[in-house]
């Protein structure tokens, strides 16, 4: 089953009086369990694609489906519900809540979801933080952790509610290459263990190599869509 599908997506940004076409007719679908990279130089439309997939933005033209459900025309409040239930985000700049500990940051989406009692929330939170290797950092605040550790917390936060889709916008861009690789390695492991679908954007060749499928964008169009050969 396809997790998400973009159909002939156009996106035009209006910057002042100038119309800037970010995406010019993009179509592709994402299958469950994929580990997909959206690659391309800056300005090619990577982030726009992620924003559309993440229901943060609406296309100027075309349709977006999440699990065969058309979400293109949903009102803003409904989109927030879709995000809360189905989508996990990992940001380039980690974006943890600075006043909360690692544990509380990861627990936050579960509280928003409102599905579990506190005991169950704590169990899930501890489990995922252990999985990302932060068992001993549960009660640290973001400013007491390294960049790599913070991004691990962010990955745990994105995964804790078991979303259909995890979107990561340049997850390694603010990390040194070794730590960046470690994060990608972690994401790949979680992808394989939990069969969560991952989509991440990057312009870094080394990071791209982790992907099982790479969609290359150039000037708002798909340049190529390849399965990685034998990894």
């Amino acid at each position, binding site marked *: 089953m396809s997790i998400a599908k973009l159909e002939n997506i156009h996106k035009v940004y209006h910057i002042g009086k100038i119309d800037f076409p970010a995406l010019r007719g993009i179509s592709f679908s994402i299958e469950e369990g994929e580990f997909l990279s959206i690659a391309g130089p800056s300005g090619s439309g990577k982030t726009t694609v992620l924003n559309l997939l993440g229901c943060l933005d609406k296309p100027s033209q075309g349709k977006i489906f999440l699990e065969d459900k058309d979400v293109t025309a949903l009102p803003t*409040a409904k989109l*927030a519900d879709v*995000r809360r239930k189905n989508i996990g985000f990992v940001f380039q700049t980690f*974006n943890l809540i600075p006043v909360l500990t690692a544990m509380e940051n990861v627990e936050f989406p579960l509280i928003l979801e409102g599905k579990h009692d506190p005991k169950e929330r704590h169990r899930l939170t501890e489990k995922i933080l252990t999985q990302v290797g932060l068992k001993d950092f549960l009660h640290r605040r973001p400013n007491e952790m390294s960049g790599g550790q913070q991004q691990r917390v962010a990955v745990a936060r994105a995964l804790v509610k078991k979303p259909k889709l995890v979107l990561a916008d340049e997850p390694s861009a603010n990390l040194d290459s070794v730590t960046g690789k470690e994060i990608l390695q972690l994401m790949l492991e979680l992808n394989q263990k939990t069969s969560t679908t991952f989509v991440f954007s990057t312009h870094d060749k080394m990071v791209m190599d982790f992907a099982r499928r790479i969609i290359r964008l150039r000037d708002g169009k798909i340049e190529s869509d390849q399965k990685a050969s034998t990894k």
Partner: protein
Amino acid sequence: MKMLLKLAFRNVFRYKKRTIITFSAISYGLGLMAVGISLYNGVNTHAMDNIINNQTAHLKILAAGYFEDKDEVPLEFTIDEPQEIRSLLKDNQNIQGIESRILFQASIISGMDELPCLGVAIEPEVDPLVFKIKDSIKDGRFLEPSESKIILGSGLARDLGLKVGDDCVLRLFLSTEDFIWNALDLEITGIAKTENPMVNRQTVFIPLSLAQEALSLENKVTELAVRIEDRSKLPEVRNSIESRLATLNKDYEVVSFEEYASDFKELMRLRSRIQVLIPLMMILIATLGIVNTMLMAVMERTREIGMLAAMGMRKLEIMLVFVFEGALIGVFGSLTACVIGGLGGWYLETKGFSMSFLGKEMSDMVSFLPMEVFKGDLTVGILIFTLVLGIVISILASLYPAYKAVKLDPIQALRHVG
């Protein structure tokens, strides 16, 4: 909801300096406001009490025409049958006491010095039921009926260098226009120091019978002062007195202490307008403090807001984070304001502050107020008002910044650098 509160609580302590500044602005501003209101209340009620206890009682029965000329203290508008009126009102349970009095223009002569004063002829046996003069005798004793002695206000005694046991001459003016007067040689039996500086500075008290004889007003008085048990029944008592008096042949008027002290009331009304400005200014300070703090918070946390929105937090929830934050500062600030207001108000209520530190000249200048010590009147209502006001202000003031926060486009917010 618990999570939102936790988040707000921690964010309050995230920017300690800013929180402290805003918190201080609210607690000092509203605290001073509470003290100010207590003081204003106190001055108002104590001044009224002082006027009632030492000058006007609750009601005065006057011969028609007297009230219009009251500042001249005239002797021609007399009540000729005070006993008759008294027995007419005897069965009114609400009346605590009725005293026949004569007010007259006078002066006190001691050696070469002479000072003008207001003469008050009283019935020593009835006076304590109606006024508080007897309680305010600081030296000597109160008057006995029909003795030829005098009580001086403390200011007057001080200015003339007179003390208990000294003799002085009281000049009683029958007519100031024609300069007709009588004089009595009297021994000072007591010095009265009331809480009302106007009384202390310019009043002497002698027994009624003595004054009636010296002023040729046998059996006549210029006023009947009425004290009632319960001030709230004043209109009722006044109506009943008026209707009883209507059965008599002569015309009388009944005047309340409020009408008698109308100059003072006017003054207070003017002051109360100024007094409204103080809370308004404090509200403005507190509002600006909160709005500024919260706007800064929204600006600094733009990306965080974008992230919260991306995670699917609803707009209302994001707004609540900021409103809670402002409200928390408001709650702490107003609680402290209540402590400041409570302590300040309590001090003013128990100790009060005296104008005497300004020196005699200055304190004479401000003594248009019928009180020497300014005492506060702190009520629970003032503290509740302060608390509620502080919380309401901070919630209202947080709404705009919170609204700014949810108006942010999550994509723009996430891209925000800073």
